[in-house]
């Protein structure tokens, strides 16, 4: 035996029944993958990384909807009647072996012409011939080796994201022109009187003149547009003085060259725009693999199996589901609409929606809400609400999701720039008027010089560099923000709302309360032996909590009743373990989940499950109190109220039994009362509140898997660091404010030259980049410093 771990996925092998040659596997799934790969000569897979595999999921009939050409057409990126191109998002791509096997799909089927992985984005692009392999076969094969593609409603609704490269084009043009103009301007900086320069200066000047055109008329266009929009909304944003500066620089330079007065300021102009764009690009830290915009459409399937009136099973797109339709939900499938259970077994996992990972059992006649994932067997249900009308999904018809505009926060820089612009214009005009009466020839010259030198390059750069840097530092600590504005919004927060389940409690490790059960050692051992056979999550938890070793004896009369419990006989012990209903106890189930144990017809008591709070939660609340108003907003019942009251600081408001739409309205009410709200939640049921709040942060145990739309995503492990993160945000703002002072000082120096009429191109070319660079160094250094201190 090579080792104790599964050769395919690296998990511990508990049984020894899955063996090929000398290789151990943990389950049949892993073994099958190995066989498939072997069969198709893809076993190099195991050469690149040790145990690279992923356990495949059961997928019988899951992709039947891919038989429908209407759906296939929507998923394909390109189709010319023969060749198809399709792109899948595959969350399980994680190592070089994954890349290798997915890029060698042609060995599995000759119909695959080409397959290309984009590792950072976890996507696979496949080109294939339709005549040789169908999309369904392709998807099924990829899924069978553990790389299940996520095909969702979002793909079929058909808004493909186009990644804009415009900013990169703009900055590369600006950089190119900046470098060249600098070189071509160099001779003129010094010996303007020299004979040969005098002769050739027009070559340099007109070359500059031509080169600057794409920068002024293409690279800088964003600033003109933003300034125009600002003016239209009667707002003097930072782009207004920038635009003024650019126009002044350009016209002045053109005038100087055409009338042979001087060399112009093209070098400064190109430099200015290059630096500004650099700030913009630095601020744009994007996390390719994260999405901040997902709604339910990303998680719901495209189609489900519907049962027609004459009993046939057909694939039906979920948008087309109507009231009264009967649908079939199989293992591992998501319930797409609200409905009533008709028959079968339903064990639904609503962790997507509520954050609660405990499966809920449903029986026929019970109402089922959309968003649950079926965990065992299959069941039939009747649709009572269409997709858009469902309990969960109607949240998205709320107008907060309709508005395309992001939450508009008046940023700091906007406030400053208002006064800045007014002051600059006043100085420019008064200087011009002064010179008009002293020396008319210099009036226009001074006026433009003031606009040029005060062009707020350094001012505009501080925020992007400081915030961009903090964004990166947060990202390294696994706190991912949508954009830099969120940092500023964070500093204005005065109320923090936490969701309970899944946010301050963990999804994993349920603690078992053993206070209500008494068993002797033998009884514990038989119980553990029995539980070993059950895969039900509750059985696993109780199994883990019993420390005594298992027995080797055989179990007879073993029976597992889905949704109820298990029974079996070991030696002289007759065991029945399960819900109160299973044991015939006439007891109303309280606010907690219990597992009752009966041995030889004698009730021994029950194990109860309690929520485990994440580590450091108490400390987290203590650190936030009393600086922020704290609220717990939960969709659950009041079962945990007492415990929370004990744990949390006084004055923490507790709200229970809130529906998704209630949560949204609760946040809105707070905002109407002048509160600025930070919402921290995790499930789709928090999506409304996250969108409505000033800053919504999603908590996630695995950031790649699932997060509702939000302004930021935080790894659950660092949730207790929130006070520090808020602190860093506050300090960053202070740094930005101090750097504003510095850039004003630079402007005062520049204004001295401008107002006295001494601003030469050389001074401009030195002063403008110098101020920008020192400011950038200052903020980068300080932001690094404060984040290291925390």
């Amino acid at each position, binding site marked *: 035996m090579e080792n104790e771990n599964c050769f395919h996925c690296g998990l511990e092998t508990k049984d020894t029944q899955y*063996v*090929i*040659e000398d290789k151990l596997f943990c389950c049949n799934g892993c073994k099958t993958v190995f*066989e498939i790969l*072997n*069969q198709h*000569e893809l*076993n*190099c897979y195991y*050469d*690149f990384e040790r145990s690279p595999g992923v356990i495949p999921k059961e997928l019988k009939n899951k992709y039947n909807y891919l038989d429908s050409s209407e759906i296939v057409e929507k998923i394909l990126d390109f189709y010319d009647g023969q060749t198809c191109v399709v792109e899948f998002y595959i969350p399980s791509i994680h190592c*070089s072996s994954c*890349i*290798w096997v997915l*890029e060698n799909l042609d060995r599995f089927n000759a119909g695959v012409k080409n397959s290309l*992985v*984009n*590792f*950072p*984005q976890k996507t696979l692009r496949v080109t294939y011939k339709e005549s040789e392999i169908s999309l369904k076969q392709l998807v099924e094969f990829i899924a069978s080796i553990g790389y299940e593609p996520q095909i969702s409603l979002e793909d079929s609704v058909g808004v493909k994201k186009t*990644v804009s*490269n415009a900013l*990169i*084009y703009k900055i*590369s043009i600006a950089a*190119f022109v900046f470098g*060249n103009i600098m070189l*071509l301007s160099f001779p003129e900086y010094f010996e303007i009187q020299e004979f*040969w320069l005098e*002769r*050739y200066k027009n*070559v*340099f000047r007109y*070359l500059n003149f031509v080169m600057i055109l794409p920068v002024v008329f293409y690279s800088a266009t964003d600033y003109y547009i933003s300034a125009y929009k600002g003016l239209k909304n009667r707002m003097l944003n930072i782009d207004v003085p920038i635009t003024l500066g650019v126009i002044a620089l350009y016209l002045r330079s053109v005038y100087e060259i055409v009338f042979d007065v001087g060399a112009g300021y093209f070098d400064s102009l190109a430099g200015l725009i290059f630096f500004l764009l650099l700030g913009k690009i630095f601020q744009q830290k994007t996390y390719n693999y994260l999405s901040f915009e997902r709604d339910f459409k990303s998680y719901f399937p495209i189609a489900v199996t519907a049962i027609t009136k004459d009993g046939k099973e057909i694939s039906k797109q979920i948008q087309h589901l109507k009231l009264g339709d009967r649908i079939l939900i199989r293992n591992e499938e998501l319930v797409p609409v609200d409905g009533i259970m008709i028959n079968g077994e339903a064990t639904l996992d609503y962790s997507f929606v509520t954050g609660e990972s405990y499966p809920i059992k449903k029986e026929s006649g019970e109402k089922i809400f959309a968003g649950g994932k079926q965990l065992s067997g299959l069941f039939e249900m009747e649709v009572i609400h269409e997709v858009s009308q469902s309990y969960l999904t109607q949240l998205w018809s709320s107008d907060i999701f309709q508005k395309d505009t992001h939450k508009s926060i008046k940023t700091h820089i906007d406030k400053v720039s208002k006064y800045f612009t007014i002051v600059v214009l006043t100085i420019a005009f008064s200087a011009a008027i002064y010179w008009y009466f002293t020396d008319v020839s210099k009036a226009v010259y001074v006026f433009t010089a003031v606009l040029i030198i005060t062009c707020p390059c350094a001012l505009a750069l501080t925020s992007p560099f400081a915030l961009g840097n903090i964004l990166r530092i947060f990202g390294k600590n696994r706190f991912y923000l949508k954009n830099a504005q969120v940092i500023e919004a964070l500093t204005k927060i005065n109320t923090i709302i936490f969701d309970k389940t899944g946010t301050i409690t963990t999804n994993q490790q349920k603690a078992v309360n053993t206070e209500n059960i008494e068993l002797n050692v033998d009884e514990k051992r038989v119980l553990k032996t029995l539980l070993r056979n059950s895969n039900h999550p509750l059985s696993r938890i109780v199994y883990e909590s019993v420390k005594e070793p298992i027995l080797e004896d055989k179990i007879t009369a073993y029976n597992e009743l889905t949704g109820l419990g298990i029974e079996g006989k070991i030696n002289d012990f007759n065991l029945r373990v399960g819900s109160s209903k299973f044991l015939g106890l006439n007891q109303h189930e309280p606010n907690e989940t219990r597992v009752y144990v009966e041995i030889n017809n004698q009730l021994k008591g029950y194990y109860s499950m309690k929520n485990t709070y994440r580590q450091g939660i108490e400390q987290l609340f203590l650190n936030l109190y009393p600086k922020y108003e704290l609220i717990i907003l939960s969709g659950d019942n009041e079962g945990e109220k007492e415990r929370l009251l004990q744990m949390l600081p006084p004055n923490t408001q507790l709200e229970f039994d809130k529906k998704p739409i209630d949560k949204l309205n609760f946040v809105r009410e707070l905002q109407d009362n002048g509160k600025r709200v930070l919402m921290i939640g995790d499930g789709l049921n928090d999506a409304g509140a996250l969108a409505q709040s000033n800053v919504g942060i999603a908590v996630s145990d695995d950031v790649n898997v699932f997060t509702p739309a939000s302004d930021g995503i935080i790894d659950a492990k660092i949730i207790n660091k929130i006070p520090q993160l808020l602190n860093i945000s506050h300090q960053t703002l202070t740094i930005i404010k101090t750097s504003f002072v510095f850039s004003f000082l630079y402007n005062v120096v520049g204004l001295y030259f401008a107002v006295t009429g001494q601003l030469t191109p050389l001074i401009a070319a030195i002063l403008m980049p110098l101020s920008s660079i020192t400011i950038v160094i200052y903020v980068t250094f300080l932001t690094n410093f404060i984040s290291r201190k925390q």
Partner: protein
Amino acid sequence: MEVVYITIGVSVIIAIIFFGVFLMNLKKGQYQDTYTPSVRMLFDDEEKSNKTVKKEKSINKESITKL
């Protein structure tokens, strides 16, 4: 000194050519995924050695069918 026209002209043209090549590759998406190619380039060697693996494969297949 008329040579200035030529030297500057040539240097600017060369610079523009390179810049054009850069823009073209940007458009082709060469900079969209900067990680995967670094892994992919290591695979070629493995495929050659795969032929030797193929010989062993027949043995592998037998053992699978036995199971």
